[in-house]
């Protein structure tokens, strides 16, 4: 029988998880390339002078609201000698001053103070050709949609709404529907795996119905329930959604799922019951927004998961949980209880963290080997079912194009 040529995106070359040269190119072409990277919720920095530190890829930036109320995203390094300028993770500042030689910047990045600019007694200092306007902090492009702030290192990036595509916006706006947000807090986690393993994990709903015994056994996500994996035409963004059916017995197909434990019971199971809150029938909706954001809505927990890279073999997840300013205590309590599913001790997230680390340990010593992505065929189009790797293939198709692999 003649071998049929399979599209390249049905295979994953394992050196993409470990090669330092590939990692360097990712920083340049993806995180510093024509992409919009999530940096903050506007609600985190409500007042002029409020700032937070974050990273795009591995590059530290300050997200700050200037005196005019505009949000600026600035490279966090003094324009003089490169010292990390802002050293607190969050706070309120009038100016940013470097501790080394006391260069001082306005909140919009403009250099406004150079100590001993004229030298002492006419000696030393800077000459007449020194122009402070040429030595401000590098400011990134900034765009905001419904209180969510994105930034780009690339001046040629398309407008944010075009970049997000109508598919992303439809589901994004269900969460960011104009209600004022209330930040509930943060988790930070370091995971010893390549950052793309997180991207693949989140695009793959099929694993959720197999790996996550908790979800499967307690009915939060099962492969025999309605689900979908949508991907936009560029392959950049996805919508992974599922619809819980409570009280329904598992179908015949579940007999194949060895991790399904029909006899397990939860004593505090009430905490998991979702209260209808968002348009649509989905009880879980996960949106990977390329390249560094995962917008997660599981029952009533809503969170941003931000990917920060730490070399080829590690990344961090920075989670920001939120609700809405008008939430009553009961709804807030429900969000806080359901947050047990997520984060470093999450009933579900632990499985993902551990499997990502196990994958890194599996692939790193075998850079010459490759992974296999043919579940549900070889296509990269949206699907109204979940037993497929369509959205993971779409990722690898896009990734190969960007990286010219």
């Amino acid at each position, binding site marked *: 029988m003649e071998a049929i040529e399979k599209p390249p995106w049905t295979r994953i070359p394992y050196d993409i998880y470990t090669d330092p040269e590939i990692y360097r190119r990712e920083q340049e072409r993806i995180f510093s390339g024509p992409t919009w990277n999530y940096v903050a919720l506007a609600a985190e920095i409500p007042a002029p002078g409020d700032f937070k530190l974050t990273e795009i890829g591995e590059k530290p930036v300050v997200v700050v609201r200037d005196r005019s109320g505009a949000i600026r995203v600035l490279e966090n390094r003094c324009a003089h000698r490169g010292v990390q300028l802002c050293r607190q993770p969050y706070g309120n500042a009038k100016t940013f001053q470097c501790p080394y030689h006391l260069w001082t910047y306005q909140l919009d990045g403009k250099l406004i103070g150079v100590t001993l600019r004229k030298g002492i007694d006419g000696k030393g200092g800077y000459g007449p050709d020194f122009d402070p306007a040429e030595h401000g902090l590098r400011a990134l492009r900034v765009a905001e949609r419904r209180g969510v702030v994105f930034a780009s290192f690339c001046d040629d990036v398309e407008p944010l709404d075009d970049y997000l595509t109508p598919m992303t916006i439809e589901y994004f706006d269900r969460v960011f529907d104009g209600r004022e947000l209330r930040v509930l807090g943060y988790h930070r986690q370091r995971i010893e795996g390549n950052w793309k393993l997180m991207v693949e994990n989140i695009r793959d709903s099929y694993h959720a119905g197999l790996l996550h015994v*908790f979800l499967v056994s307690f009915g939060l996500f099962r492969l025999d329930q309605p689900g979908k994996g949508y991907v936009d035409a560029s392959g950049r963004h996805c919508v992974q959604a599922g619809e819980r059916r409570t009280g329904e017995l598992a179908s015949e197909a579940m007999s194949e799922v060895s991790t399904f434990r029909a006899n397990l019971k939860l004593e505090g199971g009430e905490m998991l019951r979702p209260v209808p809150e968002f348009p649509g029938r989905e009880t879980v909706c996960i949106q990977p927004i390329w390249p560094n954001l995962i917008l997660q809505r599981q029952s009533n927990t809503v969170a941003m998961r931000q990917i920060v890279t730490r070399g080829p073999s590690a990344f961090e997840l920075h989670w920001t949980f939120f609700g809405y300013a008008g939430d009553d205590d009961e709804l807030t309590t429900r969000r806080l209880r359901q947050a047990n599913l997520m984060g470093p001790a999450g009933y579900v997230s632990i499985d993902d963290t551990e*499997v990502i680390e196990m994958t890194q340990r599996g692939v790193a010593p075998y850079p010459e080997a490759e992974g296999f992505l043919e579940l549900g065929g070889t296509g990269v189009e949206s699907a109204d079912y979940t037993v497929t790797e369509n959205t993971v293939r779409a990722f690898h198709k896009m990734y190969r194009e960007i990286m010219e692999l």
Partner: protein
Amino acid sequence: MELGTAIERAAVEDLYFAYAAAIDDDLERWPDFFLPDAVYRVIARENYDRGFPIATILAEGHGMMRDRVTAILQTMVYLPRTVRHAITNVRILASEGPRARVTANFAVYESYPADASRLLVVGRYVDAVERDGGALRFAEKTCIYDGNLVLGSLIYPL
């Protein structure tokens, strides 16, 4: 006898040491150290200090605590490891009747069967301890970890 006297201080320390031993070696006994409606929270210091309510683990009462044990023992997928709690600096801050406010430091190490041990988290407990019949139990326990970045996963309670 009132909490806060020399003997009770030793009793409080015993409670903490027995609690550590239960998590490290006999997890199913972990909920027994709490009153039935006790609130247990593990929270990053960043959230605690800034007044953000999100917890890394939240268990309100024995039911949710037993669910956590069930998940650890039966549903979560993770590389097997052992943890070892070192609890120090136990201090009774205030006591009134059968209840005392207690704080202590913790360091939790984790070890993998084919690897070295590492320090997982360091932090402090801010607790309420109550006499329940003959035994002391936690009426409330908040475990605040200082370094906000968790290395991998927190499988076991702190």
